[in-house]
C-alpha cells in the first residue's frame, strides 16, 4: 500500500516536471524565435537604410552630372528612382514604428532627404532656365555634397542605433539559447531520474503484490484443503435479496453435484425436513436477536431424498443503521455423528436399565440370600443348644461344619455386595486424612482380637483427595490382611507408611507374615482368587479385588511384593491431582451418595465435609 502511494506520487511529480519542462522549453524557444525575428528585423532596417543612402548618392551623382553637362538623360534617370526611394522610406518608417527613438532618427533622415530632393529639383530648374556661372556651380555642388554628408550622418545614426539593438538582441538570443539547452538538458535528466525511480517503485510494488497474491493464493489453498478435509461447506447469504455465495461443498451437502445457480432461504426451505421447520425459524429469530446463528436440523437431500442431519453455525452482520443485512457461516453433514449419538444414547439407556436390574438383583441377593443362611445357622445352633444331650460328637461336628459354611457364605455375600457397591456408587471425593483411617482400622482390629499382640507402626501419611469411605475399605482390607497373615507369628509387625513419587503418593502396608509366592501375583487381585487354603487363613478372595477396584477408580494403581514366609508389602499409588475415574462410569447412581458401608462400629470414618 505504502509503495503504491509512493509510486503514484513519483508518477505525479514526474508528470508535473515534464509538463513544466515542456512549458519552459516552449517559452525559451518562443523567446529565441522572437529574438531571431528581431535580429532579422534589425538587418532589414540596416539594409533599407543602406539602400536609401546609396540611392541618394546615385541621385546626387546624376544631379551633379546634369549640372556640369546639362544632360537631360541624367535628370530622367534620377526621376525614375523616386518611387523606389519613397517605398524605402515608407518601409523604414514601418520598420521602426515600435521604437520612438529610431522613429525620430528616421523622421530626421526623411526630412533631410526630402529637403535634399527639393534642393536638387530647385538646382535642376535653375540650370535649365539659365546658364550657371562657374562660381555658382561650385557653390551648388558643395551645397549638394554637404547635404549628402548630412543625410549620411543621419543614416549612420539610424544604423548605429540599430546595431546597438542588434548587439543587445544577439546577447539575449545567446542567453535564451543557453537557457533552453540548460532547461532541456537538466529537465530531461530530472525527468529520466523521476521515471527511473517510478519504475523502481513500480517494480517493487509489482513484486510485493505478487508476493501478497502468492500468500493469498496459498492461504486460500490451505483454507480450501482444510474445508475439504473437514467436509465443511461455507455460505454467505444476503438477507435483503435472499441470494448467496457458497462453496461447492455446501451444495454437495444438499445433494447437488455442481453449484446451483441460486440459493437462499427460499431454496433451502423445500429441503428442510418438515418436522424441523420450527427449529429453523427459532434459529433465525435467535440470530436476529443475538447475531449468532447456530442450528442442527434434518434436511431432505436432493437426488436420493435421504434424510440427513446438518449442523450450521454463522454470524449475522448489520449495516451502519443496525439493520441485519448478511448472514455468513459454515455447514456440515453430521448425520454419522448424530446417529452415533443416538446409538450412544440407546446404549446408555440400555446400560442404565442393566444397572437398574443389577441394583435390584444385588438388593435381592442382599436381602433374600442372607435370610435362609441365618435360618440354617440359627436352627443348627438351636439343635446344638437344645438337644446337646441326644447328639453324639460326630453330630455336633457336622452341625459345626454346617454353621461354619453358612457363616462363610454370609461373609461371601457381604463381600460381594461391597465389591459391587464400591464399583457402582459414585465417588464422593473430599480431602481425606489417610492416617486417621489407618488408625481407625487398627483400633477395630485390636478390639475384635484383643488377645493378639501385633506391633503396628503407622508412619506419616499425607492426606489425599478421595472417597473417604471407599478408601477405608482399601485400608481395612490391606491392614486386615496383614493382621490375618501374621497370626502365626509371635513378633507380628505391621508397618503402614508412604513415600512421595512426584505426581503421585505411594502408600504401603508391610507385614512380616506368611507372604505369598510371587509366581501367583497375577491372581492376587482377582475376585475369588486365593493363594492360601481356607484351613490356613480364612477369607473370601474378594478383599484385594475391592482394593484394586477402589484404587483404580481413583486413578491409581496397586501392586504387591512378597516371598513365602518373608512377609508381604502391598502398595497403592494415588495421583496427587484429582484422580480420573477409570473404566465405565455409570450415570444413574443406584445406591445413593454419601457414606456407604458404615458397618464398622468402632472405625472412624475420616471423611471431611
Amino acid at each position, binding site marked *: 500500500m505504502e509503495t503504491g502511494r509512493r509510486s503514484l506520487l513519483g508518477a505525479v511529480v514526474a508528470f508535473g516536471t515534464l509538463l513544466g519542462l515542456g512549458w519552459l522549453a516552449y517559452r525559451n524557444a518562443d523567446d529565441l524565435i522572437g529574438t531571431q525575428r528581431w535580429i532579422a528585423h534589425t538587418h532589414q532596417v540596416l539594409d533599407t537604410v543602406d539602400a536609401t543612402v546609396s540611392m541618394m548618392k546615385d541621385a546626387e551623382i546624376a544631379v551633379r552630372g546634369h549640372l556640369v553637362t546639362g544632360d537631360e538623360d541624367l535628370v530622367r534617370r534620377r526621376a525614375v528612382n523616386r518611387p523606389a526611394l519613397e517605398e524605402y522610406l515608407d518601409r523604414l518608417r514601418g520598420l521602426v514604428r515600435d521604437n520612438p527613438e529610431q522613429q525620430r532618427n528616421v523622421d530626421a533622415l526623411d526630412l533631410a532627404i526630402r529637403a535634399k530632393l527639393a534642393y536638387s529639383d530647385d538646382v535642376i530648374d535653375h540650370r535649365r532656365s539659365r546658364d550657371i556661372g562657374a562660381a555658382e556651380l561650385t557653390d551648388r555642388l558643395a551645397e549638394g555634397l554637404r547635404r549628402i554628408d548630412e543625410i549620411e550622418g543621419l543614416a549612420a545614426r539610424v544604423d548605429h542605433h540599430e546595431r546597438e539593438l542588434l548587439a543587445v538582441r544577439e546577447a539575449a538570443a545567446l542567453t535564451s539559447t543557453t537557457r533552453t539547452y540548460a532547461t532541456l538538458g537538466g529537465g530531461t535528466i530530472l525527468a529520466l531520474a523521476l521515471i527511473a525511480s517510478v519504475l523502481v517503485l513500480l517494480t517493487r510494488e509489482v513484486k510485493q503484490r505478487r508476493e501478497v497474491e502468492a500468500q493469498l493464493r496459498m492461504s486460500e489453498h490451505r483454507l480450501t484443503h482444510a474445508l475439504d478435509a473437514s467436509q465443511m461447506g461455507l455460505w454467505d447469504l444476503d438477507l435483503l435479496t435472499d441470494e448467496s455465495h457458497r462453496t461447492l461443498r455446501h451444495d454437495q451437502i444438499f445433494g447437488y453435484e455442481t453449484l446451483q445457480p441460486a440459493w437462499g432461504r427460499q431454496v433451502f426451505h423445500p429441503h428442510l425436513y418438515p418436522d424441523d421447520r420450527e427449529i429453523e425459524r427459532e434459529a433465525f429469530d435467535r440470530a436476529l436477536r443475538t447475531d449468532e446463528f447456530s442450528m442442527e436440523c434434518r434436511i431432505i437431500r436432493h437426488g436420493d431424498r435421504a434424510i440427513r442431519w446438518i449442523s450450521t453455525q454463522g454470524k449475522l452482520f448489520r449495516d451502519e443503521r443496525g439493520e441485519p443485512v448478511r448472514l455468513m457461516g459454515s455447514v456440515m453433514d453430521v448425520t454419522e455423528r448424530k446417529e452415533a449419538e443416538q446409538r450412544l444414547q440407546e446404549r446408555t439407556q440400555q446400560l442404565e436399565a442393566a444397572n437398574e436390574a443389577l441394583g435390584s438383583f444385588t438388593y435381592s441377593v442382599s436381602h433374600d440370600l*442372607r*435370610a435362609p443362611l441365618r435360618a440354617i445357622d*440359627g436352627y443348627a*445352633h438351636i439343635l446344638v443348644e437344645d438337644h446337646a444331650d441326644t447328639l453324639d460328637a460326630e453330630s455336633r461336628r457336622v452341625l459345626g461344619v454346617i454353621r461354619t459354611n453358612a457363616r462363610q457364605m454370609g461373609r461371601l455375600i457381604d463381600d460381594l455386595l461391597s465389591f459391587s457397591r464400591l464399583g457402582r456408587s459414585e465417588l464422593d471425593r473430599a480431602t481425606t486424612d489417610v492416617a486417621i483411617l489407618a488408625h481407625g482400622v487398627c483400633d477395630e482390629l485390636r478390639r475384635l482380637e484383643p488377645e493378639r499382640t501385633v506391633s503396628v507402626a503407622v508412619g506419616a501419611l499425607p492426606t489425599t483427595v478421595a472417597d473417604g469411605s471407599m478408601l477405608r475399605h482399601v485400608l481395612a482390607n490391606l491392614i486386615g490382611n496383614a493382621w490375618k497373615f501374621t497370626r502365626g507369628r509371635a513378633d507380628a509387625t505391621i508397618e503402614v507408611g508412604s513415600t512421595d513419587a512426584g505426581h503421585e503418593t505411594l502408600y504401603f502396608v508391610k507385614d512380616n507374615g506368611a507372604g505369598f509366592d510371587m509366581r501367583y501375583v497375577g491372581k492376587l487381585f482377582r475376585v475369588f482368587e486365593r493363594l492360601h487354603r481356607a484351613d490356613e487363613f480364612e477369607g473370601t478372595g474378594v478383599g484385594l479385588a475391592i482394593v484394586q477396584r477402589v484404587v483404580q477408580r481413583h486413578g491409581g494403581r496397586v501392586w504387591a511384593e512378597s516371598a513365602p514366609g518373608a512377609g508381604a508389602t502391598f502398595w497403592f499409588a494415588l495421583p496427587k491431582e484429582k484422580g480420573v475415574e477409570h473404566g465405565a462410569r455409570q450415570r444413574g447412581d*443406584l445406591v445413593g451418595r454419601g457414606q456407604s458401608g458404615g458397618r464398622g462400629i468402632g472405625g472412624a470414618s475420616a471423611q471431611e465435609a
Partner: protein
Amino acid sequence: MVEDSPADVELAVRALKKHNLANQLYVARDGAEALDFLFGPEARPVPKMVLLDLKLPKIDGLEVLRRIKSDPGTRRVPVVVMTSSREERDIVESYELGVNSYIVKPVDFDQFVRAVAELGMYWLVLNQLPSGPGPA
C-alpha cells in the same frame, strides 16, 4: 415385631426370651397386618418398641415406618429397622423417615442373638422415653 420370615421370627423370639424380653410380643407377618395392629379399629395399647423388617409383603417396611412416624399417637414409639438389606438407599430413607436404629441382621446366629438382645435391653430397659403418647 413386623417380620414375614417365620424362621427369623422364631430366632428373634428365642433371642428375646433368652433375655426375658418377650413377655408381650406381637408379631405382624406383613405391612398391612402391622398397620392394622397399630391403627386398626381394635383398640390396642401402643407398643413400647417396634422391630421392623423392610422387605415385607403387601405394604413394605418403609411405608409402615412412615405411618408410624407421621401419626402423633405413635411417633414417639422407638422403631428399630432390622433387615437383611445393607443398601445405602434403605438406610438413608429410613433415617429420613425418623427411624431410631438401623440394624443389618447378621447371618451368624450368635451375633444375631446378641444384636436382638442388646436392642431389647437398650430400648426397653435402658432408654428413657417421655411418659404418655405426647401431644396430638
